[in-house]
């Protein structure tokens, strides 16, 4: 399983390329302390950790931080650093700018500097949870999942509703190869979020599948639907999973909800037909196919995308098969 989100796409061979919020799989040799820790951790782990991107953005649940527009060439990054320096000059004991600076280092994958700044912020009295979760993120980024896991667990012992810490724990477990535990922790995280993004629901969904917990994945899809409503980006993978598990009735229930939301969507009408056919309800299936075809025919020929044209041909074939009682229009 890939740790965190999927690895970012390979960047074209253009030296000028930059991403303002980069998550490549790169180790950084920085201060001795971090390097030593990393080497120690590597020696302690007799397995290859999958390379992937950082889960930094995901941990924003706790930190409300994202990847900044922090590439050095961007004036905004320099302005932000300048603003932080000015704030510190005014009040050297204020830990808040140090948190900002640590996040800036994090976003630019300066792991050692980020860690050092978090430690400094702690010394200045920064919120312990914030700094610990931030540090845990840094450890994840620096591919030190054991350290990240330790910190995350410590925070969860203090407050087991800390979603950010639990997500980091999940990421750490995944990096260490314990996908089942990672999936369980992500599922717990989802339960704590009142209105998750579809992306987070999918993240948790896919984690269950990776852990071969397909029923759990479907529960996640349902939980997400309960919280944010019927959303195609969640239902479609759930439908695919139901079909893969040989549950056409369950898949049909899901597609019906999508069709109710967008009754003119020819693709969903067609899939509904397929599921009805699987269930032996051929008359209803044909009716669904006819409706789908009618939706396509409503668009002039020149207005049909390649995907629609392909679907049209498929529908016409299905309506003309011997199982159909009537020919399609």
């Amino acid at each position, binding site marked *: 399983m890939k740790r965190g*989100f999927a690895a970012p796409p390979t960047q074209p061979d253009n030296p000028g390329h930059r991403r303002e919020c980069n998550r490549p799989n790169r180790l950084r040799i920085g201060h001795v302390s971090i390097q030593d820790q990393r080497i120690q951790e590597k020696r302690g782990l007799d397995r290859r950790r999958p390379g992937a991107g950082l889960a930094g953005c995901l941990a924003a649940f706790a930190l409300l931080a*994202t990847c900044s527009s922090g590439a050095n060439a961007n004036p905004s990054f320099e302005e932000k650093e300048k603003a932080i320096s000015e704030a510190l000059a005014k009040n050297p004991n204020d830990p808040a700018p140090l948190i900002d600076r640590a996040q800036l280092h994090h976003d630019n994958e300066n792991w050692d500097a980020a860690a050092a700044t978090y430690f400094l912020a702690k010394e200045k009295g920064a919120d312990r949870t914030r700094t610990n979760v931030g540090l845990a993120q840094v450890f994840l980024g620096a591919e030190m999942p054991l350290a990240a896991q330790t910190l995350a667990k410590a925070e969860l012992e203090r407050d087991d509703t800390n979603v950010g810490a639990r997500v980091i724990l999940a990421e750490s477990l995944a990096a260490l190869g314990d996908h089942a535990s990672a999936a369980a922790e992500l599922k717990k995280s989802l339960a704590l979020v009142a209105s998750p993004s579809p*992306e987070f629901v999918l993240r948790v969904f896919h984690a269950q599948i990776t852990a071969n917990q397909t029923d759990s994945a479907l529960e996640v899809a349902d939980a997400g639907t309960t919280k944010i409503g019927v959303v*195609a980006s969640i239902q*479609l993978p759930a439908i695919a999973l139901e079909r893969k598990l040989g549950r056409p009735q369950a898949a049909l229930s899901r597609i019906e909800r999508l069709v109710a939301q967008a009754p003119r969507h020819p693709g969903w009408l067609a899939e509904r037909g397929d599921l009805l056919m699987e269930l032996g309800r051929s008359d209803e299936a044909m009716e669904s196919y006819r409706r789908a075809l009618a939706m396509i025919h409503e668009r002039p020929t*020149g207005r049909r995308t*390649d995907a629609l044209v392909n679907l049209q041909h498929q529908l016409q074939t299905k309506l003309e098969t011997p199982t159909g009682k009537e020919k399609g229009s």
Partner: protein
Amino acid sequence: MITTPKLRRHLLRCSTALVAGLTCASAALAGPAPLITRGPYLQMPGPNTMTVVWHTDVVTAPASVIFGETVGLGSIQNAISTADLLGGFRHSATLSLAAPNTTYFYQVADAATTLTTPGVDYSFNTSPLPGTRQPIRIWTFGDSGYWPGHFGTEYMDTRQAYYDHVADGTANGAADATDVMMYLGDNAYTLGNDATYQSVFFSPPELQAFHQRQPFLSAVGNHEGFVSNTLAETGDYFTMFEFPTANELGTNGVASGSEAYYSFDYGNIHFVVLDSEENIEDFAGAGAAMLTWLENDLLATTSDWIIAAWHRPPYSRGFVHDSDVEQNEIDMREQVVPIIEDYGVDLVISGHAHTYERTPLIDNHIGLANTLSASSLLDAGDGDPAGDGPYHKASLGQGPHEGTVYIVNGAAADVRSFDEFPGLGMSAGPHPVMNKSLISLGTSIIEVDGDVLTGSFLDDTGAVLDTFQISKGFPNGCPATPHSSCATVGKMSVALKNKDDNEKDKAKVKLKTNMADSGWDLSAGASVSACVYADGVLAFSQSAPNGGLATYTTADLDTSLWEFDSSKPGKYSFKDKGQTFLGLKSVKIKTGEKGSYATSAGGAATAFPAFPLQTPIVVQFFNSDAEECWDIPVDESKIKNDAEKGLGVKGG
């Protein structure tokens, strides 16, 4: 609902009063009067809904909105109140409204007191029902954040220029003249957090006067992304604003489940707003949800027009943001552009670069700037009706790969050139795909009326520095440039006889082909046109006048100029001895497999072009009623194109 000590005290006071048989208002008499600290501002505009948001320093619960179709109001909706970051409370009330396209008045209040006075200053219009065709004006305001010490108050200048351009210079007037207001991200600098927004977006009275009248939507910019996460939908941006996630506004599309990307309809326009921050950065992972939603949303919509908006432009070389270098822009171009062009999106508006840039009508330019090919330039003209002529797309509605115009307009508050920060690895010069590249402050106005979209760039002085048009659907009459996808079977001839005495000019046009019978009758007339193009530009047109008895009745004879004999089906004729309509004398139409269309005109009113015509010469015929057209290849050996004698063309 999160309660704070303040709110708990108020609630306790209120409940105690209720127990004692008193009202909450009386209970609050002992407390301070609330002060509005932000807003009210309007969100989530729909045909039957509007959300009113405002902040106060204290509250006597419940906060509420009182509203109605008259100043007398009459309905009430309690708000959801939560603690805000200003030390007070945020209130949000979603109103259920009976009538689309209707003005409503509103007032914000709490249990103790009212906070605003009902009137025009606190009113709004609900949206029309999806699919409604009516004139629509959209105002986009890109990168409008005021940045003390960096940008001045230029954003006030661009805003005022718009107020002056569309109305009487006042916020109320401009709000009345605006149907959709869209911010393109980077609405507050440098941190797009709550405090910065409070300072530069919510506090200025000039902005407040508009925001309390006109709802706005927004795309998320990278500066909002400093403190907000668009994958997790956390952070100040998502706390301040409310965007549709579950099709609350009524749309022909699909619910996104996310406030980072969403769609909504306004009349016959389907809007799609995307996230060019984290969701595109992770398009192969969790961010794939946005692309899945986008494709399904565009598949489901049936609107005449589709306009997309997001912060980072797929094509730009403005102000340190080269779309060949920045990965987000590359990903938007490579991952999103193919989808939107596949589904016939008409216009894409972005910000990010503090410039104005605009492409012509293009399709399938996914690579770097230097890979632009001529085949991607579907119409390389300027799109200006007064210039090269409007861009034309064959389909009113989605038409795959019929072309898209891309606008970059992040110049509402600041404008820079790309070379202010040399050495960043960017290329010099305007982006080669652009038809316009301007270093000028300004905002974009998009006006849609039926099957025509007009885009303008209005600078901070009120000058219109760019205008383009897109027309869609089958032409009615002769389009400005030759139409595509016309049938080529038939025979035609055009004779434009040019005389020294213009009164003796003669024009005869004939087409023989299989022509559909549109069921013309005397009340409808016919809309058939002959169009001659010289080097791609319309040089001459001869249209049979449409409209029926009421329109084409001579004052003397009081009879229709069109004749149709039911005993002779498929034959229609038009005669006008007075040659009232551009010198037209007669029109004869015969439909069917051996159909024909013939016109005869003459006199100075025939409006001949200057001869000889520039080549190549193309002759097209349009039956707009049946949406048929013919483009009979010209027989090059039979062209007479003479300065003195005029034009003679045959083909087929």
